[in-house]
């Protein structure tokens, strides 16, 4: 009989990533025992326990250097076989997106991806996810014994439950280098972004109206830095070459879910909204009072971005320091 919730936790230098804490916090409210799994990394049982996990399973070995689909799918399948959870949660991060669908096909489990809300309805986990560019919310359940869900970062608050240290159990998943059909031969840091847009808690995006690379680099990037935010861009800004396309937010760019999104000189086209409409607070700065973005904004300033942004940057520097 499957029961309980297993949270696939990503780590960074031995610490659970914020997405993992969000998922553990949510799992603790859904009912049933919560356990965690960390693949290819170390974990602090106290930190996991404080966020509601009773046990953390770890899988390590020679095959667990850089992330690979083959090693991770096999490892997570092995932990699921051992733990028999009813629900497995992971982040809709680059790793989660790559891992969960294939895992679903491997173990015959239904996968609901890109979820923004989970609830327990009569003992069953029900997921909600935006579809059609966020114009519609769909509700889905899983019928198989195990249900897989990937959740967009920043969907849930981090709430420590104050539990005692989780016991850490190493699992041998029998993965060897021979299982790997892909090899990572090189990892390059791309020029700019530090935090992945999809995981960013604050984003400042610039549009076509920044007018040039210099405009983007001298207005958007410093404003983002002052707010400790990640810089983003509209497609018009990306297509014009002002920002790299890894920065594009929207239907054919990144779908983001930050607490604070500041749209600078962006009109609010439907395809841009598709990527950022679930942001908790949206601020827009646009000189056109009729710009559609204002209809989706929590706060708006009607003015020239080249005068507002430097002033806002100074104010953030003073307040956030």
């Amino acid at each position: 009989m499957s029961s309980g919730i297993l949270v696939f936790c990503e780590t960074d230098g031995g610490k659970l990533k914020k997405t993992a804490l969000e998922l553990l916090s949510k799992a603790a409210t859904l009912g049933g025992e919560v356990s965690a799994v960390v693949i290819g990394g170390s974990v602090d049982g106290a930190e996991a326990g404080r966020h509601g996990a009773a046990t953390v399973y770890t899988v390590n070995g020679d095959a667990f250097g850089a992330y690979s689909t083959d090693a991770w799918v096999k490892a997570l399948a092995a932990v699921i076989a051992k733990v028999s959870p009813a629900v497995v949660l992971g982040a809709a991060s680059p790793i989660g997106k790559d891992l969960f669908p294939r895992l679903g096909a491997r173990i015959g489990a239904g996968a609901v991806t890109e979820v923004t809300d989970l609830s327990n309805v009569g003992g069953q986990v029900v997921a909600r996810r935006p579809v059609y560019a966020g114009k519609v919310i769909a509700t889905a359940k899983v019928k198989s014994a195990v249900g897989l869900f990937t959740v967009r970062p920043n969907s849930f608050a981090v709430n420590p439950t104050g539990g005692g240290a989780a016991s850490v159990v190493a699992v041998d998943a029998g993965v060897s280098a021979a299982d790997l059909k892909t090899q990572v031969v090189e990892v390059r840091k791309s020029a700019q972004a530090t935090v992945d847009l999809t995981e960013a808690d604050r984003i400042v995006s610039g549009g076509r109206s920044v007018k040039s690379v210099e405009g983007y680099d001298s207005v958007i990037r410093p404003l983002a830095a002052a707010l400790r935010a990640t810089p983003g861009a509209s497609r018009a800004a990306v297509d014009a070459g002002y920002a790299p396309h890894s920065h594009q937010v929207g239907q054919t760019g990144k779908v983001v879910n930050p607490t604070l999104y500041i749209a600078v000189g962006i009109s609010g086209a439907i395809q841009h909204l598709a990527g950022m409409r679930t942001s908790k607070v949206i601020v827009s700065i646009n000189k056109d009072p009729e710009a559609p973005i204002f209809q989706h904004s929590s706060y708006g300033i009607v003015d020239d971005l080249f005068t507002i942004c430097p002033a806002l940057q100074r104010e953030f520097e003073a307040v956030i320091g």
Partner: protein
Amino acid sequence: MKVGVLLKQVPASDTIIKINPDKTGVLTADVKWEINPYDEFALEAAIQLKDAGKATGVVVITVGGADAEARVRDALARGATEAIRVDDPALAGSDALGKARALAAAAKSAGVELIFAGKQAIDTDSAAVPGMVAELLGWPQVSVVTGFSVDGGKITAERNAGGGFIEVVSTSVPAVITCDKGLNTPRFANLKGIMAAKKIAIAAKSVADLGLSAGQVGAAGALVEESGLELPPPRPSGKIIQGATPEAKVKELVRLLRDEAKVI
């Protein structure tokens, strides 16, 4: 080597979406359909391999109704050489795994050795089907690819690994690659291509033609159950910040972000 392209038609990105009265789907009567934008990168990648003499043919594979033919035709006109459209009443209510089963079986029947897919469909945004196809075929997958080369069966691909990292991954055919923006610039069909495409038959296949049983696909085989659509809750109407000077507006914004919204 034959190359496959998984191609889905989606509502144009500026479509006004209306939910049907029983809240189980969207009204499609007024929808203008397009090739999923990421599948255009996949198609272009495959055609470029053919142009470079590295692929002997490009097979477009779709799971979709008769109304998807126009998108498949467009793909043929751009340079694809064969097409399979899997269509069967038994497919109704498929989840991602059901569609993946049909696509994997079609790819196998066409004898392709390399599959290009989009990184996600922009309508239902699952980003799930290609990884499932790869698993069902037992092939490696490289997802969210922005550049690649194929040389004597060896594949080198660049992918966006998140956090600002680009990974260079090596693998070999057979494999599944999902395509991100930046991989290439999709071409349009020209008149010669449009004329040539008219002579190519689009093979319509049923689930049974592909050796699958009705219970493996559609609502019968689905492990995910959709239980309704609704409109997102309306955003509370926003405030336009007033102020005599830019400085005054900025100060008021920061005050609101701190004291009212509590996000800084």
